């Protein structure tokens, strides 16, 4: 995998020879990947391509899966799931600072940052889907992660809310500068958010695109779609 050692020195993620399989089926096949600190990477792939398995390996949530390889991640990793995954019996603020002692002020600031100042005492059930996902973002950012893992975080939201969330995530990313690995199956979402886009096919990284202004978005888009095996797509 091409690594960009000139621009950013420290790596936030270093994966070498990562193999994961469920029974006979190989999900990740000797995968190598390096993400520099502060880079926003989107990982595209079809269902079953191993996106979520890779993310779970980085999150340390694959203790019950057989496999080999080396994974290095920073001390502070935050995860945003597809569902907001808020504890329904904890108020919004308590969800944000879950497991952090004496972090109330930081939690409030974090909620204000995602535009939910004043909703600290609400129950998660009282919020809309988009608001719940914003609380989840606040919960991950209040931990000041050096790596933010996001597993299709906007997949369950409607199109308009998703666009607003894109803007919010990009703004939060620019303010806090964690390395981000965003798993998605939405090519446009990847182009809108990421600096670098990877396509995962059969457990290996099959294509890579950098959004550094060299080519137009539609060129990048059609190349990504080709890598994903989508042909004759008109939209």
């Amino acid at each position, binding site marked *: 995998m091409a690594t960009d050692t000139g621009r950013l020195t420290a790596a936030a993620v270093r994966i070498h020879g990562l193999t994961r399989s469920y029974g006979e089926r190989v999900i990740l096949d000797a995968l190598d990947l390096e993400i520099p600190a502060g880079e926003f990477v989107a990982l595209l792939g079809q269902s079953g391509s191993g996106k979520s398995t890779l993310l779970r390996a980085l*999150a*340390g*949530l694959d203790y019950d899966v057989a496999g080999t390889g080396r994974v290095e991640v920073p001390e502070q*990793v*935050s*995860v945003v*799931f597809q*569902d907001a*995954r808020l*504890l*329904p*019996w*904890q108020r919004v603020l*308590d969800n944000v600072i*879950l*497991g952090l002692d004496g972090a109330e002020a930081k939690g409030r600031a974090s909620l204000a940052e995602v535009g939910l100042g004043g909703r600290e005492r609400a*129950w*998660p*059930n009282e919020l809309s889907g988009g608001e719940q996902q914003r609380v989840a973002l606040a*919960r991950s950012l209040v*931990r000041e992660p050096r790596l933010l893992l996001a597993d299709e975080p906007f997949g369950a939201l409607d199109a308009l809310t998703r666009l607003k969330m894109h803007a919010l995530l990009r703004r939060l990313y620019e303010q806090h500068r964690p390395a981000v690995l965003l798993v998605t199956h939405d090519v446009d979402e990847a182009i809108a958010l990421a600096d670098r886009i990877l396509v995962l096919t059969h457990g290996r990284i099959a294509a890579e695109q950098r959004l550094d202004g060299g080519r137009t978005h539609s060129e990048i888009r059609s190349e990504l779609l080709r890598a994903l095996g989508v042909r004759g797509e008109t939209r």
Partner: protein
Amino acid sequence: MLLATPPDTLVQARARRSLRPGRPLRLGFLYGPLLLVAAWAAGSATGLLDPRFLSAPWTVVTTTGELIANGRLQDNLASSVQRVGLGLAFGIPAGTLLALASGLSRWGEALIDGPVQIKRAVPALALMPLLILWLGIGEGMKITVIALGVVVPIYIHTHNGLRSIDGRYVELAETVELSRAAFIRKVVLPGALPGFLLGMRFAVTTAWLFLVVAELINSTSGIGYMMDLARTYGQTDVILVGIVLYGLLGLFSDAAVRLVERRALSWRRTLAG
């Protein structure tokens, strides 16, 4: 010539028939029992119910007045309430701790779940002879019978509530690196609370049930003792006072638990809420 098509007719929009149970009734839990009392009063007034078999409600009321006047009711009620209170005080924590130990570790489950299920299958009355041999016929035996009866529903429902906590919340706890203590406090206990409270509702009624068993067999005080004495003298009115009292105590303890339930689970939005 074209046939004129009839214009689309519009109908007045109506409110849809709601499929929810409807708005909560004020003191709704009293309606059924009141209907039962009304039927009883009607039966007595028309002479359908022979007072030798079942005294009229008003006789029960006057007898209650007499029992209160000579202090027997209060004394016996106090003994009974104390037994139930102590039985619950030992049974609830024991059931909860067993459920936690069994729900949080495979070893705990292997060691605890079997014996509790066996205890559940054995009728409480079958344990009485053994308990009397071990503990005598004093208060200790009665409280133990009640506590053992309470442990079962608390354990079963708390354990079930605990086991049905969404695995995704456990995953979340792992990613935010909750300590084991914080995990139990923030995820396990609140997650198991609905089950625990359901167990509480069974436990309070069970406690009164086992109290009767314990008091009818050998006592010198308590509502059960008062009823057993009334049986020897053929006083159906006193027996009825006891039955109504047991019923009311059971009903109000259940209502108390439900009140706690509504407060403690205010985060839930359900069909009934």
